[in-house]
């Protein structure tokens, strides 16, 4: 049955997409999109890339203000959902200091993630890069020559480091793991990017956790001091599940859903960075942090709510990261323990017990698109298929 009112908590990439997809699928009921950040919904990926250089906030907005009225989407910025009352199907929201109660027939949780702050002495003085406000603050700091320490050698820390270096700053990246982006890419790709960053003049401190942030910089576990005028912490994220947890929904490293992205309450769905869903490859529940997952989740939920479709979620994951002039593209999703094999120069395959799980490429859109097709196809992958990718 089609719900009358759909309310979406979180006006990020996925929440916004759910609203737009509901209308595209012919949903006629009321849509309320609630976000605790100010301003229009925006894209985050450019925050660690082009935005740091050009500062164009308008370029980030997903749609102009007129869009919300035209599509009859009630958009409530600067509004925080404080509690979900599942029995009454109502939300408690806080806006401009005043509490209000809003009803829902169906609720979509699109609350995303927040930055993780590892237990490091003095870490409160470090900067974050998660929101437009964070990025605006960082841009101001990049205005004058600075020595910068980045805690965390993942995608966001490295993208930021590449931009900061390009702008002429002195940059050091501190990573507790022995290699860069260890959670997401193969050893070969880690090494490749380590060489690139070193070549650009960035100092890399690998396998050394930071233990203290001080006004003069960062101290590492082995006692090394890294001088810095300011410190960025990009050491991973935590899914925002507190609302769902307090409401008694099942949680498993994210809000737990079934294959149709429905939570343990059939009147509530979850998507994007905060959702933990059954991996279509059967590796248990997974949580992905990417634009692709957030928007494809949103589309599936919208079809279910508007049209009653019951398809399970099976979209192929894809990711990218722009570091300096270098573009890393990943088709599929590999867990950190996946085996790796170089298919050709700049092309690495990741394999698990079910076979080919992901293919990583550098500056090679052709191989990336071929990899997407190959991994999405139900046929077993042969040696010839792999060679075909690089051809």
């Amino acid at each position: 049955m089609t719900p009358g009112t759909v309310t979406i908590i979180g006006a990020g990439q996925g929440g916004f997409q759910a609203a737009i997809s509901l209308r595209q699928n012919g949903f006629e009921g009321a849509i309320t999109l609630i976000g605790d950040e100010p301003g229009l919904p925006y894209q985050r990926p450019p925050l660690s890339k082009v935005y740091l250089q050009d500062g164009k906030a308008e370029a980030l907005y997903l749609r102009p203000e007129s869009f919300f009225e035209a599509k009859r989407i009630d958009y409530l910025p600067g509004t925080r959902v404080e509690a979900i009352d599942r029995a009454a199907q109502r939300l408690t929201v806080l806006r401009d200091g005043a509490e209000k109660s809003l009803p829902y027939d169906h609720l979509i949780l699109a609350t995303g993630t927040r930055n993780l702050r590892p237990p490091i002495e003095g870490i409160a003085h470090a900067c974050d890069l998660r929101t437009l406000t964070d990025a605006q603050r960082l841009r101001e700091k990049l205005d004058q020559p600075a020595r910068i320490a980045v805690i965390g050698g993942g995608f966001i820390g490295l993208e930021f480091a590449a931009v900061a270096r390009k702008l002429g700053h002195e940059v050091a990246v501190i990573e507790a793991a022995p290699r860069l982006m260890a959670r997401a890419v193969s050893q070969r790709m880690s090494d490749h990017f380590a060489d690139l960053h070193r070549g650009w003049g960035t100092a890399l401190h690998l396998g050394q956790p930071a233990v203290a942030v001080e006004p003069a910089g960062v101290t590492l576990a082995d006692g090394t001091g890294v001088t810095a005028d300011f410190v960025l912490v990009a050491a991973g994220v935590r899914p925002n599940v507190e609302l769902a947890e307090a409401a008694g929904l099942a949680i498993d490293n994210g809000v737990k859903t079934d294959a149709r992205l429905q939570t343990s309450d059939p009147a509530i769905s979850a998507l994007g960075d905060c959702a933990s869903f059954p991996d279509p490859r059967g590796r248990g529940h997974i949580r992905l942090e990417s634009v692709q997952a957030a928007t494809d989740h949103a589309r599936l939920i919208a079809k279910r709510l508007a049209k009653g479709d019951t398809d399970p979620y099976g979209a192929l994951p894809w990711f990218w990261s722009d570091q300096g002039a270098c573009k890393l593209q990943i088709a599929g999703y590999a867990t950190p323990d996946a085996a790796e094999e170089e298919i050709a120069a700049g092309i690495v395959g990741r394999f698990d017990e079910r076979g080919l799980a992901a293919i990583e490429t550098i500056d090679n859109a052709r191989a990336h698109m071929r990899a997407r097709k190959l991994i999405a196809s139900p046929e077993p992958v042969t040696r010839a298929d792999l060679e075909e990718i690089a051809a």
Partner: protein
Amino acid sequence: MIKVTYVAQDGTRTNIDADEGDSVMHAAVSNDVDGIVGECGGSMMCATCHCYVDDAWAEKVGPRSAGEDDMLEGAASEVTERSRLSCQIKLTPELDGLVVHLPEEQF
């Protein structure tokens, strides 16, 4: 300001004024032109900003950029000689009056 016209499948024409330096994709999205999605924000990852450059403009717009052919393989609608990823077309004064046609679907 640079004028761009987007022609939908049913012939509906939407005219917008865009800033110089903007892309044809971003100009469409920020003016709420249905039919261009631009999911990856212009990172050449999604091919949901596919458009067909009007014949009269083909020469001025120029050829596809490196990698565009490959990404277009993932486009949802038919790819023709005139197909471009609109995020890769930057608006310059020479393109004032540009006409692009929108594909049937982007997914």
